């Protein structure tokens, strides 16, 4: 029975799939008026025919024919086919749409200023042309459906873009499911074309749909919008851009989907403040927002950016990362920024050096979640950088920088791997390859963070650093973690490993109040945990579970009792006898720090470091050492395998003696 009902329904639906339509053909444009909508079609003089408000010059009409085409209201379909394009216009919007078709170059003037029959006009693009474009001029919102369209603009007629929407309203760009679309701009537009991108929208663009869009911006940006840009679901592959991969004003918001960046001539994604209107902060529902902010709610951003001083993602305003996956490598070297003249054009006068950064925000950066893998390989390149504050509250963040320092000297750029070469240069004369660097404060309250910097600080703030949570591993050849002002650790688990300087350092006071800290400094005069004693600042230890290889800055106020490994008669690491005659710890060896008899931290010593090993806990502090006959075992590790706060067992008792500070400068 079901089978028969199904067959009958298919038959009836086939019978009803068609509808009587009057087609008016004008060149490559067909206007389709359903018979039920056509009404009175009036002739004026001998020259004009008006149907549903659309006035036709009779001399332009090739023919009119009646068939059974089904017409979708509000739709304009453009089918590209090599050197030509056919445009089909639904009758109910015909009076508002004026197509100009030259080969496969389609330009449309849209004149409605409100919905038509309760809806906006939708332009459906399909087919292929190796010399075509779609240009739309209008002043009301509309939708562009990409239904498997491939356009390369070779010889522009309306614009050098493959898709140019000269409309300052909201434009939906719907990348239809199961379609692959490709847009390529002209390489050498004429001067009057003002070509800005392969896909350009004057207004605000909302990308959606579960299809794939490939964009080649051979002349300037790949995608550019004059106002905000949002992405949901679709896959956008920027295959090439002479300028930015994606460039927008007001704000950039990625709700989901995927963006892949390759062959990028400048920044991967850039959001700027529109200078023609007043700037705003973030607004409710982003209404009338002009913040230059970047919002990454979910989705995937990946790619390699190779231009000098380029950024993977850059915001004029704040950058907020909630979730998703970001996998970016910036490989370019440094560049010189010159001063600007009164017209905003660069002069030949040096202003500063600049370098790459995987993520860069001019405003605050806040990371709530997500998986971030950021790599910088060029000179001066950074993982995360910003002009304001950084807040890390969650997520899994891996940053690696391997480039040297780029600096300006003898009227040119130079590179070095030694910070001593550049330590006396003003900050604008050098760009250093720090893992994370912010000009404001850094506050870490959650997340799992691993930062390695081959030739400079792993984590640096030009303000304060506050750590209250999270699992942090920082390794560098310079200070692993450095604050230009005060540094406070009151929670979390932090490993700061420096192979050439202090593990933890501040240019103000350093406060160790809580949390688990494993700081490794290199040989004297560097220490595990430092403060700016020379500037009359101090290290304050009032709490926490602490291991400091290289010891603590002398003159520290040790409210919580600290101990050093080995007996006090071992000849090393006492005030007045810095850098004692023998190391008190074994390299590459597991130790377990116990509080009130319970192991609270197991740590593995490095291959080299400062000679003192200082520990402290909030309870009665003892320590164990691993040996071949009594190994310390752990169930899981943190800090790149250098520590464990899981289940810790084994080890022989190690000798501790009192400690009052040292293996620093006195």
């Amino acid at each position: 029975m079901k089978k028969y009902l199904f067959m009958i329904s298919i038959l009836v639906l086939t019978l009803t799939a068609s509808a009587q339509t009057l087609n008016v053909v004008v060149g490559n444009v067909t206007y389709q008026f359903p018979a039920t909508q056509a009404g009175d079609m009036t002739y004026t003089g001998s020259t004009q025919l008006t149907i549903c408000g659309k006035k036709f010059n009779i001399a332009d009409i090739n023919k009119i024919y009646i068939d059974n085409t089904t017409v979708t209201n509000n739709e304009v379909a453009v089918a590209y086919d090599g050197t030509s394009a056919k445009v089909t216009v639904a009758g109910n919007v015909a009076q508002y749409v004026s197509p100009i078709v030259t080969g496969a170059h389609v330009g449309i003037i849209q004149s409605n200023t409100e919905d038509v029959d309760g809806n906006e006009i939708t332009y459906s693009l399909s087919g292929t042309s190796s010399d075509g474009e779609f240009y739309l001029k209008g002043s009301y919102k509309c939708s562009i459906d990409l239904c498997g369209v491939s356009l390369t603009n070779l010889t522009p007629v309306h614009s050098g873009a493959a898709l140019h929407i000269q409309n300052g309203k909201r434009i939906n760009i719907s990348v239809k499911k199961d379609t692959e679309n490709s847009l390529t701009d002209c390489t050498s537009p004429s001067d009057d074309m003002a070509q800005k991108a392969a896909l350009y929208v004057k207004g605000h663009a909302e990308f959606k749909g579960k299809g794939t869009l490939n964009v080649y911006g051979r002349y300037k940006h790949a995608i550019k919008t004059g106002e905000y840009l949002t992405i949901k679901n679709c896959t956008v592959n920027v295959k090439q851009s002479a300028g930015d991969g994606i460039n927008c004003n007001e704000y950039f918001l990625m709700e989901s989907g995927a963006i892949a960046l390759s062959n990028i001539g400048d920044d991967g994604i850039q959001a700027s403040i529109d200078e023609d209107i007043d700037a705003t902060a973030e607004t409710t529902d982003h209404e009338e927002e002009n913040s230059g902010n970047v919002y990454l709610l979910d989705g995937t951003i990946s790619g390699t950016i190779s231009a000098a001083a380029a950024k993977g993602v850059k915001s004029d305003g704040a950058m907020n990362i909630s979730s998703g996956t970001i996998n970016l490598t910036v490989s370019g070297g440094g560049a010189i920024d010159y001063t600007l003249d009164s017209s905003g054009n660069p002069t030949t006068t040096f202003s500063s050096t600049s370098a790459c950064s995987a993520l860069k925000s001019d405003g605050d950066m806040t990371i709530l979640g997500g998986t971030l893998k950021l790599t910088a390989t060029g000179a001066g390149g950074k993982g995360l950088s910003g002009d304001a504050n950084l807040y890390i509250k969650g997520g899994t963040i891996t940053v690696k920088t391997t480039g040297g320092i780029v600096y300006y000297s003898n009227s040119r750029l130079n590179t070095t791997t030694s910070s001593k070469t550049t330590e006396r240069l003003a900050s604008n004369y050098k760009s250093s390859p720090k893992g994370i660097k912010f000009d404001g404060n850094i506050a870490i309250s959650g997340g799992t963070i691993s930062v390695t910097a081959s030739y400079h600080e792993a984590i640096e703030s030009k303000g304060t650093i506050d750590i209250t949570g999270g699992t942090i591993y920082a390794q560098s050849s310079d200070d692993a973690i450095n604050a230009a002002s005060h540094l406070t650790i009151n929670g979390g688990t932090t490993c700061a490993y420096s192979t050439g300087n202090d593990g933890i350092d501040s240019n103000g006071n350093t406060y160790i109040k809580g949390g688990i800290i494993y700081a490794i400094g290199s040989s004297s005069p560097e220490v595990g945990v430092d403060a700016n004693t020379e500037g009359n600042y101090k290290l304050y230890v009032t709490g926490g579970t602490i291991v400091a290889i290289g010891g603590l800055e002398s003159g520290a106020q040790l409210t919580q009792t600290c101990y050093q490994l080995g007996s006090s008669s071992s000849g090393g690491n006492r005030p007045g006898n810095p850098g004692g005659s023998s190391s008190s710890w074994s390299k590459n060896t597991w130790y377990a720090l116990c509080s009130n008899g319970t192991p609270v931290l197991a740590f593995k010593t490095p291959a080299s470091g400062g000679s003192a090993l200082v520990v402290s806990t909030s309870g009665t502090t003892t320590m164990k050492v691993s040996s071949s006959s009594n190994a310390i075992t752990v169930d899981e590790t943190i800090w790149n395998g250098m520590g464990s706060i899981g289940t810790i067992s084994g080890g022989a008792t190690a000798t501790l003696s009192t400690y009052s500070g040292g293996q620093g400068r006195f």
Partner: protein
Amino acid sequence: MKKVFLFVLGLAGTLMAHADDYPYLTFLDTNGTEQSVVATGLVITFSDGQMNATDNNGKVTTISLSDLKKMYFSSATSAIDSTGTEEEAKDSEVEVFTLAGNSLGKYEDIRQAKTALQKGVYVVKRSHQTLKIAVQ
């Protein structure tokens, strides 16, 4: 059983909706004369100041653009087959009827009929042609 009944009712409704197709396209000229042609497969072209409507059988209906006022889809031809034009009937004897089908007599030609008749719409027959005229 109820489900099957509702299902079939729904399909029937769909079929009825398709019955909205119009069988004719009707042209109205400036004199009030209507001419209907079968809509299915109709093709209209314009040349030399004329509108040419060619139906599925290749029959062409030609109307001068200067006489054409409007066209519209229609469900009926008002029972009149548009097989002729006023121009064709101008030198022939014609018989005039009301729309209800009552004969009003014969006239030498259509011009004479129009002069004699009061304002209104009439059916005019001449040999094998029938058309509708409006006297203003």
